[in-house]
């Protein structure tokens, strides 16, 4: 096996990883505030991808432009879900919170199955064929564009959390709910908006994935598992940590595909997943868990 193949798949891993990181950022934002792991996160990603797909199919809207429709749409959906489904179980025992999001996942996935059928979907756009070559190393344009967009969005999210008053309120709520409400932060609103922002992240990620990813209603579970590994591995408070671990997972998956036959690459990912869960230094997620 020549080294250029390995380098190519390494770079592919980097590009996939940055999308994973964006998805994981949404999950960690929601977990950080509400201490709920949203099993339906991957299903919301699936909805985001269908949204881009149909916008392209019906109105010939470029997938990258559909980001601007996906973000507000999924944001609204997240707010609605928080209000109707998550809020009523905020005080419930932990296993009820897990089950409610599992129910949500099941509902979204199968509604999508009913409405959009089992058919595999993908878009056909001209720039799918564009490839940047450097020596014998090739990178597709769609992957590169997705990476750059994911980086930009993650940076924007980071700046918002770090430097705006709203971001400060979010961080305060995640550190201490009672304290935050004592100093006058409307905690209920923060819940709603954070869930919306977390969901908007997968809306954007969906639009970036659709140019090079084949879509069906069942992709949600594998994405939520990967996002969860990324979160556990990266650390909850650490924005950079989540991003780096997303990239590590992407690279591991991509290199795993080189050395393992068929879909066995997922075995590599899941083995890493198990090891990460076992040896994670994150005591807080263990205690929350």
């Amino acid at each position, binding site marked *: 096996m020549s080294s250029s193949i390995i380098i190519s798949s390494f770079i592919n891993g980097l590009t996939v990883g940055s999308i994973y990181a964006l998805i994981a950022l949404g999950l960690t934002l929601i977990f950080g505030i509400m201490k709920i*792991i949203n099993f339906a996160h991957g299903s919301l990603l699936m909805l985001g991808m269908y949204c881009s797909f149909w916008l392209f199919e019906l109105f010939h809207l470029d997938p990258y432009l559909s980001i601007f429709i996906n973000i507000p749409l999924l944001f609204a959906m997240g707010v609605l879900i928080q209000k109707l*489904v998550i809020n*009523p*179980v905020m005080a*419930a*025992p*932990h*296993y*009820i919170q*897990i*089950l*409610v999001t*599992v*129910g*949500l*996942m*099941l*509902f*979204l*996935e*199968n*509604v*999508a*199955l*009913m409405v959009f059928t*089992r058919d595999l979907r993908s878009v056909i756009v001209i720039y799918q064929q564009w490839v940047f070559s450097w020596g014998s190393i090739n990178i597709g344009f769609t992957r590169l564009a997705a990476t750059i967009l994911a980086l930009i969005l993650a940076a924007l999210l980071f700046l918002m959390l770090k430097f705006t008053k709203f971001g400060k309120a979010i961080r305060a709520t995640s550190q201490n709910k009672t304290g935050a409400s004592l100093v006058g932060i409307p905690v209920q609103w923060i819940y709603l908006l954070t869930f919306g922002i977390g969901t908007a992240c997968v809306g954007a990620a969906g639009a970036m994935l659709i140019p090079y990813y084949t879509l069906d*209603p069942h992709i949600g*579970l594998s994405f939520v*598992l990967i996002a*969860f590994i990324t979160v*556990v591995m990266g650390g909850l408070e650490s924005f950079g940590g989540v991003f780096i671990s997303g990239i590590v997972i992407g690279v591991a998956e991509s290199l795993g595909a080189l050395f393992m*036959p*068929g*879909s*066995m690459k*997922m*075995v590599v990912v*899941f*083995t890493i*997943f*198990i090891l990460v*869960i*076992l*040896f994670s230094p994150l005591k807080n*997620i*263990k*205690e*929350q*868990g």
Partner: protein
Amino acid sequence: MTDNRSNANRRFPWPAQVGLLMAVLVPLCLVPFFATEHIVSILIMMMLYAYLGSCWNILGGYSGYLPFGNGAFYGIGAYTSSLLFIKAGVTPWLGMWLGAVLSSLLALFIGLISFRFRLKGVLFAFITIAFAEICLQVAANVESFGGNIGVLIPLKGNHYSVYQSTNKAFFYYIILIMLAMIVLLTRLIEKNKIGVYLVAIREEERAAEALGVHSNRYKLYAFMMSGFFTALGGTFYAQYFMYIDPGLMFGFGASLEPVLRTIIGGAGTVWGPVIGSVVLEVLSEVTRSLFGEISGLHLAIYGLILILSCIYIPQGLATAITNLLKFPFLRKMEPF
């Protein structure tokens, strides 16, 4: 709580309980003699899921640890007995025990590492999913396990000795016995100290440990039992349908379906899995007859019911009925 319980027992002395049980069991035994084949097959699926739900309930319901990867055991049971039957000619009646032992060893392994590292809640749920997914990938990618296409079990005719029959009544009685056994086992667990320990772990693990409960040991026992009996269910499925594939046996759906039924019926109760299974099976039959075969419809409805029941009756139907009718039979076990 103790007072409540003795009151309940006074109102429902054991002969009444046995009588009630007989009133349910005897008609169930006679069903295959007069019911149509369609009804028998619905009842078989209902009982299979009630059985699998009860297996899940041993750990998931009583101890509060939620394994979402019981598909791993289900699949191992089905694959072990079927592959032994096809490749070595071993009758599934023997093969199923080997599958069950393998499954409980896997449960032991998963349990040892996750309890050693004190994984709880979401982390435990996710690690069991990961193991089930690994099993799925292995089964789908290893050619001698049948790969993605799955395994077709050859029909040897009406040979009861190889766990085969063209008569549905045969399977009906097997699953009825299996279900009766697992319900009895759950009841025994509840009556014995292991049940009390598991409930104590669910309610406050550290306090239970401080009082001298070897929490890891009892969680392991429960998990291994759960894996063992789930595998027997897997063999039953393989012999009944005579076809298995990785997605059917190891997939997340296979893990989730029994869990859903148990939760909706009432986790941590003896009859919860049975009630949940009856309710959901009837519901899915009704939707099927109203709307025809739309793939995804009945699971979407399950999801909705799960959300609603988590919000409005988080303790499950069995407990809700108990509270409504003061019917002690379905009571959820509480810490004392």
